């Protein structure tokens, strides 16, 4: 596509541009429907049946059912829309954000209390910061995965 995208070299980051938005239209509109209490109840009662009411791709539906926010974002989801899915499941914004890093809730919270993730090494793809692709997932899960 012909949109200029100077932001593609920012590591671990997907901007919600017009291409993402087009791909994720129904995924995000599904999330909007969860702003109504009656829809949240219906969704929680039978998630598969509820997502099947929406013209999402199967991958998008699976990302919703798995609460896999990274996957959902790669398929056109935006965090402010996806937050409605998280809140339906009783998740805070901090729990949602943390879930995308591979860290445990405690690890992520501790990182924030210690001043947050450093910008050093995380500005451009190919540097050596903790948000770079070759250092995922982060936290204990990584150590355990490697062990």
């Amino acid at each position, binding site marked *: 596509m012909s949109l200029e995208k100077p932001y593609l070299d920012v590591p671990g*980051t997907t901007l919600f541009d017009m291409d993402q938005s087009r791909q994720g239209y129904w995924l995000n509109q599904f999330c909007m429907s969860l702003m109504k209490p009656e829809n949240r109840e219906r969704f929680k009662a039978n998630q598969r049946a509820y997502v099947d009411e929406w013209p999402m791709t199967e991958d998008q539906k699976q990302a919703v059912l798995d609460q896999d926010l990274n996957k959902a974002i790669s398929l056109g989801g935006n965090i402010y829309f996806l937050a409605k899915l998280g809140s339906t499941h009783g998740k805070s914004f901090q729990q949602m954000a943390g879930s995308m890093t591979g860290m445990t809730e405690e690890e*992520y919270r501790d990182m*924030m209390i210690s001043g947050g993730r450093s910008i050093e090494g995380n500005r451009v793809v190919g540097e050596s910061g903790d948000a770079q692709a070759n250092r995922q997932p982060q936290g204990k899960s990584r150590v355990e995965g490697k062990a």
Partner: protein
Amino acid sequence: MAKITASVFTSHVPAIGAAVDLGKTKEPYWQPVFKGYEYSKQWLKDNKPDVILLVFNDHATAFSLEMIPTFAVGCAAEFAVADEGWGPRPVPKVIGHPELAAHIVQSVIQDDFDLTIVNKMDVDHGLTVPLTLMCGQPEAWPCPVIPIAINVVQYPVPSGKRCLNLGKAIRKAVESFDKDLNVQIWGTGGMSHQLQGARAGLINKDFDGAFMDLMIKDPEAQAAVPHINYVREAGSEGIELVMWLTARGAMSDLNGGPPPTVKHRFYHVPASNTAVGHLILENG
């Protein structure tokens, strides 16, 4: 004649609203945040405005993907508090100021800003958390509020320069309103934060500090900074900071007046995923 007397800048983190609503403000995690606003609450009591122009962004609440306005001005008599998925916050509804809003819309559209006129808009944490931080938990908000919503969610978003210039046009509009009104303009959002992907949790204190310095001394220089710098340096959601420029653009010094007085400056990390920044400027 109406007059903009001061500007207030603050983050609008949803977790701050939840902390107040759930009575957690005395917890060690939250204490430093609310301490930073103690001065501000007293200041607002001592400098009670007749109307607040509150610049914020909707977070996929009132605006779905069906229609995404770049700049929207709320002209209704009142605005309900939105249910963002947890039920509406237990805060007062927001009373508008339809006469001043209509006047601003008329003036600013004729000044070549292509506003969207909004008469129905449930307002989310972007608007209610700043009111909570500055007013606590009153029965009713202290004065009418005109919501001014800027799109910073769906790219393309407006440039910092455009946001600053919107502020200038708003100031001109307010000063041509024929009733005596003490008007404040609040710019909200930021500071550095990222809510997505492997880089979630990013905080850049150096960027935030430099941003606040320029907001005080040289907002025109800050307005020239392109989006990509915010995204790269302050996180994908740090782009919200461009909304501070709209409030700053409405101050006198950008229209030939003296520099503003810095009444208060505060910065703290973290609130949930986010750095909290706060400034109060009075026109000299």
